[in-house]
């Protein structure tokens, strides 16, 4: 399947997930945005060589993922697809950083390897957290939440319109792409010249469409501001969730839980 079509699938799939109705979905979007931000900040603030201390955060993610009924296989696949940049930059660590940091019986592991795995872990945690936010909230609600949290309105409108028209334009893009593919035969790639005509054509249609949308807006009394009537109410339950969530995250951040458990176990065993 062409790239453009699989991307389309991603959008509609996440969109479908967001329309489920679980206890996580029902939380106020603002709460979820804040919780996600706290989560990400806690994870990235670990020191360069942290690995085991971060693992409890995975536990938190799995818990939420389960409650929100987001399939782990989907998240895992996404992680694989987007990992290259982090891996490419991270892989230099083992090459450059030879400081021995850890010893497992006879094996000494260099700081480079540890920080590399740390990067992979951070990467998986932060990316999954964001995917989880969208899959349990939906894009529109996230945008409206951000407005309530102080994002400029016009930027929110921009995001909403962008999201709305991705579906239309990607569809148009897919059809142009199909039409070309059917007449290209063995020539797999798209030459730059053809590409620019193709994209230019798409751009012309985009500009025309923008004109028609503007007209449609004017017809309905548009005066430069977009008004959206939306009421969000934060319930006690929401606040309770947020408070708990933050407490847990901070505790996990400050206290290296696996280390304590490990110590306990090793002491018991020895």
């Amino acid at each position, binding site marked *: 399947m062409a790239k453009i079509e699989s991307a389309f699938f991603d959008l509609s799939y996440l969109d479908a997930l967001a329309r489920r109705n679980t206890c996580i979905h029902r939380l106020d979007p603002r709460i979820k945005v804040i919780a996600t931000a706290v989560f990400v900040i806690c994870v990235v*603030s670990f020191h*360069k060589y942290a690995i*085991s201390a971060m*693992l409890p955060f995975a536990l938190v993610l799995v818990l939420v993922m389960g409650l929100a009924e987001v399939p782990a296989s989907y998240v895992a696949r996404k992680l694989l697809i987007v990992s290259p940049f982090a891996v490419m930059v991270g892989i230099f660590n083992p090459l450059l950083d030879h400081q*021995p940091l850890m010893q497992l019986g006879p094996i000494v592991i*260099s700081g480079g390897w540890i920080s590399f795995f740390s990067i992979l872990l951070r*990467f998986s945690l932060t990316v999954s957290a964001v995917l989880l936010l969208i899959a349990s909230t939906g894009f529109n609600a996230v945008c409206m939440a951000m407005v309530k949290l102080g994002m400029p309105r016009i930027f929110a409108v*921009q995001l909403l319109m962008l999201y709305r028209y991705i579906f239309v334009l990607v569809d148009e893009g897919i059809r142009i792409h199909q039409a070309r593919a059917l007449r290209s035969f063995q020539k797999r790639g798209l030459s730059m010249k053809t590409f620019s005509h193709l994209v230019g054509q798409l751009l012309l249609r985009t500009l025309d469409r923008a004109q028609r949308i503007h007209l449609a807006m004017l017809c309905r009394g548009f005066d430069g501001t977009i008004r959206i009537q939306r009421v969000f109410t934060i319930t006690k339950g929401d606040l309770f969730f947020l408070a708990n969530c933050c407490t847990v995250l901070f505790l996990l951040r400050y206290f290296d839980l696996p280390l304590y458990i490990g110590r306990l176990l090793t002491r018991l065993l020895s």
Partner: protein
Amino acid sequence: MHMADALLSPAVGGTMWVATAGTIAHCAKKVQRDLDDRKIPLMGVLGAFIFAAQMINFTIPATGSSGHLGGGMILAILLGPYAAFLTIASVLTVQALFFADGGLLALGCNIFNLGIFPCFISYPLIYKPIAGRRPSPTKIAIGATLGAVVALQLGALGVVVETVTSGISSLPLKPFLSVMLPIHLAIGLVEGLVTTAVVSFVWKARPEILELTAAAKPLGALNLRNVLAGLMVAAVVTGGALSWFASSSPDGLEWSMFKVTGSEELDAPEEGVHHTLATLQEKTAFLPDYGFKQSSPTESIENSEPETSSWPMIDSGTSTSGLVGGILTLMMAAALGLLFKRRAHTV
């Protein structure tokens, strides 16, 4: 070249977030005030267009590899800098949220790297003076190509600086730059050529569209002094914040947190560990001739702070405990996951 959360320290990520959020707020105010209300749907649909266009790949001549449109320059040319910046920011936001491209914290860096330079450097300082009010195919070609190259070089520089100052990656500045800049020179050239081709296509088909945006005074015109002043302030703030964090510790927040909690792992005796390690090293010869002295050459490039190696201590007890605990935690996570899966099936 989307930055990832995993490579950022909170200090760098946070600073760039603030810088980006500030710019967005500023642009939002500008766009709102000088509103030409045609721009609202135009921005939205063009954002979606960039999205669709980025998913169509072309073959880069003579290399066989494929590339896609970045779109920063096209947006700047069609929308003017402020609206274009908002549009780029929105595209990157959707990419971060849906395609996990980058991440939440890295969003600040990505918007900065990919948005600021085409909109506030390349467009006003390069494209406009060259292509100006009376565009011609050659002028568009030179302006767009040069603009795209410069914007991408600066963007790549941004990525490198942010990565290196974050200190999560061990990549040293110079070699990183010497890889990133040439790669992005090539990417920039291709981007420039494609931008030129697409803009020329539109110009030929519907010249009035480009003329409209070129002549649109409120959003198109940009006060150069304001731009420079803004950039200066951003640079000073960024630099100041970064150097403060950098000087206090390689990971500012981390370090301060440890200081506050007085975490015990900090005070393991340095001498002993190094000694143990040295003997261990001799025995196992796992890492042949790399020195353990903290002044080894590779290390001094990567981190000038002497205390770096002082805090992540090696203590075989800690390592084992961490490992055991970690594995246990992972097992718990897996079990939890399976539990949910089972439940989902039975439901």
